[in-house]
């Protein structure tokens, strides 16, 4: 421990920490705009400056390690003047449309302006302008609102390894744009939405579809049904100030029902369906000496990433559609048939923790008989806004359950939202498929956790199965390169684009906070643990669905409706 002084208080700080971390641990608030926890400091925003005795200039606390005997002032007049000036400078080139901004109430710049009591902006002058980019089906960019903190750039480059956006131009005219000022849809952007989570202002946000959903609901011409993804139930509570990781499954169902959806389905159901298909595919590939390793296919951002960067690996990716699309396809065929509704009149909305799902729903490969499997995708954030709009008091909302026939799920479906969850569920079922027995211990501890790359060897009746689980696409790139170069020892690889899996998805409540994501993951495993049924092949309605409709996993009909294909993709160059 290192002894330092902060605001005349004696503090013991951990060695190797920065002044910012030490001060925050000691209960001092230091504002930041460009700081991202656990990443190399950028030093761009200068909001975190502090005064250090003996130093002529102010010191950025985010980048400066603690040294014995440092005497630090985090709130001296000089520091406050500097911070106020920085906020004023940002506001001077910022459009003043806070009341109509999508980020109104959640904007970090807005709260800093309020905290620092900015009552006027003394510097009016030139502004930067770039048109709003609506080209992407998932992410909308408003560069005029960008404060150039660079969080999106670093996330896109360092976490996701995509680098779709970067700083362009120089000096005051600097902007964050795709290369050559292209539109986002022309770049290698995989629609993951991590940039949206990272953005402190309204410069990056998802494409809104709640108006469209409300219109369809109000008109009443269509049979509007909804499905909610596993990750929603452990993250929605954040918006309503519940502790991180609160399980609000019942409230999700009742809120959706109050909005007027005819049926409220659980995507967990189709997660089990996915496991049946994917587990069968895996066993088939192993037994028939098919293409290995097998990559999972639940994550649309990963699929797009592979199509752009690793076209040679597309045969290695499972042909299974994602749970969202599987349920959509099943609703528009099996459910419509069963209910006697023309599938054309069925409108499927899904609530997803993801912006890439918006793009996935539009993939031409993911439609049957000329109908898209899913009609509209609402993110967790937009769902929360809808709850507000409909005047639903979330706190007093009763807990209800999902609607049959797609209501029952197993623990295997729940953990889909955590990185490693798909792998764990698939292994539980694969064991059964190979041996015909149930696993004695269902938990695969090696598959769990927030870290970017996990690997393990699983023994199924003498069959040594080497598995890898990666989240964050930069890690996926490294693993995919191994596979491409023929150096991969693995049989089965799960890939999720977002940190921690869907729990940290780009459509979740704002803010990139690893602790919050970990709490959500813990909550998911807790749900799994308390379930009576934890194995996909023991989900009775799923088995009934096979009996009534799909015959068996991997059948011709299943292939027609539940599987898909991939195509190499180029970006504009």
């Amino acid at each position, binding site marked *: 421990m290192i002894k330092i002084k902060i605001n005349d208080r004696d503090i013991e700080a951990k060695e190797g920490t920065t002044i910012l971390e030490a001060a925050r641990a000691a209960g001092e608030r230091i504002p930041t705009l460009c700081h991202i926890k656990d990443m*190399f*400091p*950028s*030093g*761009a*925003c*200068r909001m975190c*400056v502090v005064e250090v005795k003996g130093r002529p*200039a*102010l010191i*950025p606390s*985010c*980048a*400066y*390690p603690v040294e014995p005997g440092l005497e630090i002032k985090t709130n001296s007049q*000089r520091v406050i*003047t*500097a911070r106020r*000036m*920085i906020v004023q*400078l*940002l506001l*001077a*080139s910022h459009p003043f449309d806070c009341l109509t901004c999508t980020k109104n109430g959640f904007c970090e710049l807005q709260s800093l302006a309020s905290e620092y009591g900015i009552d006027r902006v*003394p*510097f*009016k*002058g*030139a502004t930067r302008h770039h048109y709003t980019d609506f080209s992407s089906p998932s992410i909308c960019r408003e560069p005029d609102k960008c*404060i*150039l903190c*660079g969080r999106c750039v670093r996330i896109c480059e360092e976490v996701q390894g995509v680098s779709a956006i*970067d*700083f362009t*131009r*120089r*000096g*005051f*005219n*600097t902007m964050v744009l795709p290369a050559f000022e292209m539109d986002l849809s022309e770049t290698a952007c995989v629609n993951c939405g991590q940039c949206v989570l990272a953005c402190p202002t309204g410069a990056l946000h998802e494409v809104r579809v709640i108006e469209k959903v409300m219109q369809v609901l109000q008109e009443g011409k269509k049979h509007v049904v909804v499905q909610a993804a596993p990750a929603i139930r452990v993250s929605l509570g954040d918006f309503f100030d519940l502790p991180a990781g609160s399980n609000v499954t019942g409230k999700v169902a009742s809120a959706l029902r109050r909005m007027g959806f005819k049926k409220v389905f659980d995507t967990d159901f189709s997660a089990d369906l996915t496991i049946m298909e994917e587990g069968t595919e895996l066993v088939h590939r192993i037994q028939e000496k098919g293409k290995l390793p097998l990559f999972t296919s639940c994550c649309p951002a990963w699929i797009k990433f592979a199509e752009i960067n690793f076209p040679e690996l597309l045969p290695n990716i499972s042909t299974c559609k994602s749970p969202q699309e599987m349920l959509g396809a099943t609703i528009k065929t099996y459910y419509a048939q069963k209910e006697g509704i023309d599938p054309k009149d069925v409108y499927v909305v899904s609530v997803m923790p993801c912006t890439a799902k918006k793009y996935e729903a539009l993939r031409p490969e993911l439609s049957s008989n000329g109908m898209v499997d899913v009609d509209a995708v609402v993110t967790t954030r937009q769902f929360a806004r809808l709850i507000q709009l409909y005047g639903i008091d979330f706190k007093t909302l009763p807990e209800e359950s999902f609607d049959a026939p797609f209501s029952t799920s197993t623990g295997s479906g729940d953990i889909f939202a955590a990185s490693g969850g798909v792998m764990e569920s698939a292994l539980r079922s694969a064991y059964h498929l190979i041996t015909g027995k149930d696993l004695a211990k269902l938990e695969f501890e090696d598959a769990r956790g927030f870290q970017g790359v996990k690997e393990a060897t699983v023994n199924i009746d003498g069959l040594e199965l080497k598995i890898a689980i990666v989240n964050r696409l930069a890690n996926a790139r490294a693993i995919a390169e191994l596979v491409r170069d023929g150096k991969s020892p693995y049989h089965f690889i799960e890939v999720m684009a977002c940190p921690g899996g869907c729990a940290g998805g780009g459509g979740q409540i704002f803010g990139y906070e690893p602790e919050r994501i970990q709490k959500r993951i813990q909550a998911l495993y807790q749900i799994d643990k308390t379930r009576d049924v934890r194995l996909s092949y023991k989900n009775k309605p799923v088995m009934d669905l096979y009996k009534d409709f799909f015959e068996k996993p991997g059948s011709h009909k299943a292939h027609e409706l539940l599987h898909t294909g991939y195509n190499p993709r180029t970006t504009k160059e």
Partner: protein
Amino acid sequence: MSGIFIGMGTCGLATGAGKVKTAVEKWAQAHSMKLPITPTGCIGYCQVEPIMDVVTDGGVRVSYSNVTPEVADFILDETLVCKNYKLDGILGQFRGPKSPLPGVPFLDEHPYFKKQVKYVLRNCGVINPESLSDYKAAGGFQGLEKALGMGQQKTADEVLKSGLRGRGGAGFPTGKKWAMALANPSDKKYLICNADEGDPGAFMDRSILEGDVFSVLEGMMIAGFAIGADEGIVYCRAEYPLAIERLIMGIDMLRKEGILGKKVGKSGFQFDIRIKKGAGAFVCGEETALMASVEGRRGMPRPRPPFPAKSGLFGKPTIINNVETLANVSHIMREGAEKFASIGTATSKGTKVFALTGKVKNTGLVEVPMGMTLREVIFDIGGGIPNGKAYKAVQIGGPSGGCIPTEHLDIQIDYETLKTVGAIMGSGGLVVMDEDTCMVDVAHFFLDFITKESCGKCIPCREGTKRLYEIVESIVSPYSKMASEEENLLRFNKIMNMEELAQVIKDTSLCALGQTAPNPVLSTLRFFKKEYEAHIYDRKCPAHQCKGLLKYEIDTNVCTGCTACARKCPTQAIVGERKKAHYIVDEKCVRCGTCADVCRFGAVKVS
């Protein structure tokens, strides 16, 4: 045996040294004489380029200035045929082993050179920069040999003992920097030579690279050896084609010679150098931005610590030294630390090269011992202000530096003293200004430069310097009758915030570019506040430079009605009948000054 030397640096070539060379070749052919021509770099007296030296039969080298092809013919006729050396434009004879020519002045007694101490520039303009044997004959690579014999620690110690401080601007002790990198074990270390000289009006590094490239390469090898690096990179701006050509050639020759790329002698030291061309961003002179650029990323600085000596290029320990620093190292290692340390002041040792430009009689590259006063540099070496004008200020340290007025002309040039008057040593730009210079306009110019060259990363520099520029812009803009009361109030409001804004930019910016960006404003405000006040309150520019604040009027008593001005006025702002007094319509006038230029009677008055 006689011969010819021609200064063929960029400055020489720009003034026609190439043509002089052709003329000399023709002359030799016509006279059937074998006359070897040796191209050299710039000797520093750029004002009088092209410079040609004639070596007499007796082996004495005499230097002549302002040589055109015709003058060259004349000089060759006179010197080599008539043995007449005292000609117009003579600079003087070099001192050498041969007996001097009687009655011919010595070059080092020429007023421009008399007070200079040529330490690092000793070879520039003297030897052929493209000849390795010439460099070796001048003592080249003895420094490296000594260093290899002394070992790493002792080499770093020797440089530390010499008191050499970084010549790039900040003045960090070079030996100390090396010791930090040496003490940091790693499988790979880098040595970078920073040749991204971007200050407006500065060309010290270019001249050294053009005129004595081997001293820089040798310095890099010594530095690389001292810190334990095996790879050197020269980061040179692409706008220096001749310097890059010399670097390529020099590296090539050293590789062929087995000095680069192979183990040198018995020492086991192996080093290679490559060139990375900078694309013209000023900020890439900042070391962390420079490294980002070498790595292939956008040239933006990052916070320090970690310092490059610990984690630099590609995360490996890296030392970045400036061209002049490294050139000094070669000489220090050869001649020993004591000789270098005997020059200069207590804290600033050795010499400093300055690019003397602006309103001064002799422009060029000067090398002076630390501790010389600014007055000596500007008036004794520079010859003072031309056209009988008065001295006003000197801008030292480039866009990050400050303006020093008459009352501080007698301060010493060293790292510490310059700081006391709000300036910095910088890399060596020295721009002299006379009474016709408007100091607000100077601040305006440098801020314009900074706002364009800011990398855009940190808020105070990106947003702050732009606002500061806009404030100064509003100060030099005309009073507009169209502007509302509110706008005028806003102008005043902004001006009231100017100093605080400048202070915050200085206090909080990420890199040196931003931290020093307000210096031109702060230093002119400090010494020339009255000029600002005249601009702000009276809306007048005392030096008659800020176009927006000028008013052109015709003195009706003097005007003859010749209509010359009315015909030339680009905006038809001048009205009047022939042979009667003319008038200027102020609203139409764009302050181009054409009327004043064409009036033969001095009737156009500027106020």
